[in-house]
């Protein structure tokens, strides 16, 4: 707890820089990742992150120094080449996208490992620390390194801001973009370039293997909360920033812990929560909705049964016993008990010892459901010519879905009918 307070009070200036740095990295990756996500090419980030290694090594070999700018240039070039190779393979051979991706990724990385070990064994003192590129060390980001990578992250974000509309169009609808004359090739190049840049900087924080997560996971998580790109980017940025701060915090509070994996863990947990609980698209939410719908169905079907009983006897408000209800429609005793209780609570029925009867509201609702049921049955039999004995079940589900607007259209289409296929009256 103390460390948390200590951390956020920015007691030590270093913390400020580390937090700033990791946040920038995470946000720029998350933003770019949204575009690759939309294009369904999320794993491109994986390719780039593995492919930068040979570039870094060659740059070191050529210049003899670990100047971040030089290394970045090397990384950038080899990242780009990997993408070009990947595209060339897909365009010119029968090899499919997944294999081209995996091949590009792993071969470039293998070459990189070879070069890196060559450098390491060559006894060149300057080479130590070259392998931090592999694993990422967010806490080690200081001074010149931090400056370099922060500038790049800012460049990435500004570019996205400037070209937002164009990027959006070429990602969602490349055909249309072509038709209206956008310079697609050039825009793609810019987008690829900033993706490479975002990856190059992001690897500093989390390392090669996990870099893909910085691009994919925030975007995937954000997707579950919204359908709009602008909101998705915003959310992804927030998720990314949060994981960045967590990473900085962890590297401060537990220096022996690897920051990269923890950042990815935080992101993954956010993603899992989103997958399961995001309103609308979350798995658990959808299940729960289906469940609550079934409850609603039960109650409405009960009211329908009540109405039916009333029709048969002529008195809609008579006292009804459970057995009578079972005659109309087979409910399990548990369902019946639960349903009746709910109806009573909501004021649709009232209880009198062992019998139940409709209230005014219950009557209206029961009437409405019955009406929709019979309208829909009529539609199915008359308009779609489905056999009458088949429509009862179908209508059972559908009647609960029909809105007043749909109801009006149904009525009009069927020419304001008064009776259904079974010749029961359609209540007004």
């Amino acid at each position, binding site marked *: 707890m103390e460390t948390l307070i200590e951390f956020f009070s920015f007691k030590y200036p270093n913390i400020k820089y580390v937090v700033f740095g990791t946040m920038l990295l995470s946000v720029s990756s998350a933003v770019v990742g949204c575009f690759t996500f939309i294009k369904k090419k999320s794993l491109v980030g994986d390719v780039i992150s593995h492919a930068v290694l040979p570039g870094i090594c060659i740059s070191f070999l050529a210049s003899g120094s670990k100047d971040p700018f030089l290394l970045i240039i090397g990384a950038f070039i080899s990242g780009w080449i990997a993408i070009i190779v990947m595209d060339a393979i897909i365009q010119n051979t029968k090899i499919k996208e997944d294999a081209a991706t995996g091949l590009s990724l792993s071969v470039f990385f293998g070459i990189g490992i070879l070069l890196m070990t060559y450098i390491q064994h060559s006894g060149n003192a300057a080479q130590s620390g070259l392998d931090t590129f592999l694993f990422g060390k967010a806490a080690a980001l200081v001074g010149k390194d931090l400056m370099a990578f922060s500038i790049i992250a800012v460049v990435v974000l500004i570019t996205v801001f400037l070209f937002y509309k164009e990027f959006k169009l070429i990602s969602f609808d490349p055909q249309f973009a072509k038709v209206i004359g956008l310079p697609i090739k050039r825009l793609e190049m810019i987008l690829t370039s900033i993706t490479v840049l975002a990856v190059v900087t992001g690897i500093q924080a989390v390392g090669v293997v996990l870099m893909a997560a910085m691009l994919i996971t925030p975007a995937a998580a954000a997707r579950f909360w919204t359908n709009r790109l602008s909101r998705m980017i915003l959310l992804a940025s927030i998720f990314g920033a949060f994981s960045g701060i967590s990473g900085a915090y962890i590297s401060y509070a537990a220096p022996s812990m690897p920051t990269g994996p923890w950042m990815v863990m935080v992101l993954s947990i956010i993603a899992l929560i989103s997958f399961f609980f995001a309103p609308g698209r979350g798995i658990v939410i959808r299940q729960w909705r289906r469940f609550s719908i079934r409850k609603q169905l039960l109650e409405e079907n009960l009211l329908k049964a009540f109405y039916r009983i009333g029709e048969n006897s002529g008195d809609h408000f008579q006292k009804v016993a459970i057995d009578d209800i079972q005659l109309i429609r087979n409910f399990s005793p548990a369902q019946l008990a639960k349903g009746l209780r709910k109806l009573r609570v909501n004021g649709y029925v009232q209880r009198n010892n062992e019998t139940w009867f409709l209230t005014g*509201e219950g009557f*209206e609702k029961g009437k409405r459901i019955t009406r929709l049921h019979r309208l829909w049955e009529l539609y*199915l039999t008359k308009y779609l010519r*489905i056999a009458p004995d088949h429509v009862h079940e*179908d209508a059972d589900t559908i009647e609960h*879905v029909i809105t007043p607007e*749909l109801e009006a*259209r*149904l009525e009009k289409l069927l020419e304001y009918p008064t009776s259904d*296929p079974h010749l029961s009256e359609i209540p007004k």
Partner: protein
Amino acid sequence: MTNNFIKQVENPALEIHDLTVSYDKKPVLWGIDLSIPQGSLCGIIGPNGAGKSTLIKAIMDLVDMNSGYVKLFDQSLDDVRKRVSYVPQRESVDWDFPASVLDVVLMGRYADLGLFRNPRKADKEAAMKALEMVGMDKYYKRQISQLSGGQQQRVFLARALTQKADIYFLDEPFAGVDAATEKAIFRILQDLAGEGKTIVVVHHDLQSVETYFEWVILLNLRLVASGPTKEIFTPALLEETYGGKLTLLTEVGELVKEGEFKAREKQ
């Protein structure tokens, strides 16, 4: 009022009862009810997106059914799989796959072979015979990537033929195929029907329906009609199939998918 345009038969090869199928939670087939006689050459007709492929896939148990059942020769699919042959759409397969024509046709024998046996001479002979029937026997060694669309379709048919099934389901076998191949395939199907086999074809070309099929199923999300071509293939019913007045149905389908049960005003 019953639908007079859906003819039911005795001892059907295929019987479908109240079949409703959803795709991605949206109902795409509503309450299909039909039966087709044995030994008939039958065409499934309807506009794009009508659910024709889905119907075949539901019969083959490749997609889930919401309600209803399917019977083949009065039994469930699992009990009669050996008597059923399925020819999927050509584009559902990657023709770059490293295989020869014979390799693909031999697959038709796999069901019979079971887990540990490999194709024997008898199987190869059966495969070659099937290739002969479709006129591709000289190509048995050819790589499938080097085949034209029509040739690929013939290979698919040959594969189905090696199964020596009693009922065949073909999904758009004439799509993107040259005229000669179409004629050749049709003749084979006709011969099969003549031998008492039942053939069900998803077909897209209205012009050839009357020539090819003796029984027609008109489908557009729901069954419009099913019966002998002469009776069913009429302008009125076609109008209904292709008329496209199903906005209400599709909208309701969407609502079911969303699980939207919007609060309705009290009246």
